């Protein structure tokens, strides 16, 4: 974490700079099936994050020698758009993006019945259109429902949110400035149905007690997000069924067979027997605006003075290792050899 905990991020009433309580999520909306070509897709908005998830597959893997004989490979490609952050990001994938792709892929692998599709790949593309802190969590949440939209059988949905430490208090769902100036961050991917942690990282400084508190808070938050995921899937299929019945009369729209409800989520727990099975007839727009608890202010009314720095997800300026005088050794050449994105990357810390 860039922060040292000195920036005041919680006011005397216990409210955060965007007006949220410590245990409150940002507003979340999830739309399912936003892209034509993809086998499954979703758009998530979580605070000011806007992320699109697209799933292609299961399909043949190239090169073939990378295919697994007994199960599908899940490949994730998490990418930040160049304009998604305050400073333009380089178009080349950073190490940060590669690492996040890998951990999301690992998490998804834990819930997909990959053994049903040996020797194939399931490709999950995550494009961050706008970043506001916690993009890896929002991406995982979106990827999870996009897989369901693609009809990939899963043991359960993963919901993901970060807990963190600001002004020595444990809070839920860090946004931009908190992510930057807080003193700790724990992204968590959690499957409520299975009670399984499939993604967890940490940076910052936590006592064991703080970590435990943070974990509990994030699990609670993830469970709320899970309800939004389920609702989005229900509404999508309700909308399709409504369309289908309209089409039956009007024959105006072409009904594509691939749009048939196909989320085959085999959840092993009793908890989610309320999976959408009966069609809800209306639901004109499959968009869910979940406003957990009170309406939090998504915009920071006033940039606090102390917080001039760029958000952590912004790409930082690479240090120019220029030597001003009499270098003991010739260092410039070496630094030039260092791929520059690597350096910037590091500055982002996570």
């Amino acid at each position, binding site marked *: *974490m*860039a922060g040292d905990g000195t920036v005041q991020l919680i006011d005397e009433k216990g409210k955060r700079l965007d007006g949220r309580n410590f245990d409150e999520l940002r507003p979340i909306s999830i739309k399912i099936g936003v892209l034509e070509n993809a086998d499954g897709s979703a758009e998530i908005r979580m605070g000011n994050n806007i992320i699109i998830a697209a799933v292609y597959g299961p399909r043949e893997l190239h090169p073939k020698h*990378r295919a697994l004989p007994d199960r599908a*490979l899940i490949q994730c490609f998490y990418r930040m758009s160049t304009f998604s952050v305050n400073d333009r990001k380089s178009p080349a994938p950073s*190490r940060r993006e*590669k*690492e996040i792709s*890998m*951990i999301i892929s*690992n998490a998804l*692998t*834990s819930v997909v019945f990959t053994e049903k599709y040996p020797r194939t790949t399931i490709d999950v593309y995550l494009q961050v259109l706008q970043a506001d802190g916690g993009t890896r969590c929002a991406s995982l949440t979106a990827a999870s429902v996009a897989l369901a939209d693609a009809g990939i059988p899963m043991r359960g949905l993963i919901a993901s949110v970060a807990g963190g430490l600001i002004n020595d208090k444990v809070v839920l769902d860090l946004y931009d400035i908190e992510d930057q100036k807080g003193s700790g961050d*724990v992204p968590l991917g959690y*499957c409520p149905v*299975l*009670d*399984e*942690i*499939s*993604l*967890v*990282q*940490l*940076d*910052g*400084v*936590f*006592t*064991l007690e703080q*970590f*435990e508190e943070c*974990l*509990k808070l994030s*699990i609670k938050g993830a469970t709320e997000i899970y309800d939004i995921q389920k609702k989005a899937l229900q509404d999508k299929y309700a909308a399709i069924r409504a369309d289908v019945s309209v089409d039956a009369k009007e024959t105006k729209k072409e009904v594509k067979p691939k749009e048939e409800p196909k989320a085959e989520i085999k959840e092993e727990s009793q908890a989610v027997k309320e999976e959408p099975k009966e069609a809800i007839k209306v639901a004109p727009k499959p968009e869910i605006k979940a406003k957990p608890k009170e309406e939090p202010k998504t915009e920071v009314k006033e940039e606090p003075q102390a917080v*001039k*720095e*760029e958000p952590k997800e912004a790409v*930082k*300026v690479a*240090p*120019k*290792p*220029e*030597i*001003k*005088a*009499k*270098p*003991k*050794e010739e*260092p410039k050449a*070496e*630094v030039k050899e*260092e791929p520059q994105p*690597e*350096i910037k990357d*590091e*500055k982002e*810390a*996570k």
Partner: protein
Amino acid sequence: MGDDFVISEIEKDYIKSLLEQKKRIDGREFNQARNVEFELNLVKKAEGSAIVTLGGSKLIVGVKAQLGSPFPDTPDTGVITTSAELSPIASPYFESGPPSNDAIELARVTDRAIRESHCVDLSKLCVIPKKSVWILFIDFYILNHDGNLFDAAVIGAVAALATTKIPKVKMLEDDEVEILEEVEPLKIEHYPISVTSYKIGEYNIIDANFKEERVSEARVTVGFDEKDRIVSLQKGATGVYKPDELLAVIKESLNVSKTLRKELMKALS
């Protein structure tokens, strides 16, 4: 690490059946790390260096210090940057080419432990605010891979930083800086230690060797400072943890970190 190596089913079953009898293939306890050894300051052209062996895993870490411009949003702090190469020298399963995802994860997890523990006070690396700061390049080359490169990398990085000597500088006019022959040791503020626990079936074991690592389904690398605070954490691979299980693993790792830190401090003294 890596999906491309298929361990034989026989070996997998053997390791698992031993674990059921509370045994490990190399005779260690579940919560026992391998021996760690250091060879310091081998590379004279680097400002700091260490070769570290953790059981059969061996790597070299070099620290290069260079003057450069700071990041504009942190004009009065130096910069640390970490990279790792899983050279084909280290394992028949490594390929040459651009850094693999495994190498990237290794570098980033190590970087996180160093950075978040405030191991080095970056503000002390500032020479002229906004203009000139020290940049420390921490680069690893894996020489032999026998599992759990994470803990070897973190302890090696701290060891290398602890041996690092930074040249003194003299201010000239116009914000020019002259680098002098004389050096002074880099001050280490905190000594982070990472401990990685590997999950095989229902068992969690500390510091897996190559074969154990290959059959494991998940791992958790936790960085601790000398005040027993958690400063970094990374769950790796596709396996999952129950919340209570994760907490138990962290507590076990904390104990191991104390042993490893003792070894490090002994080597540095």
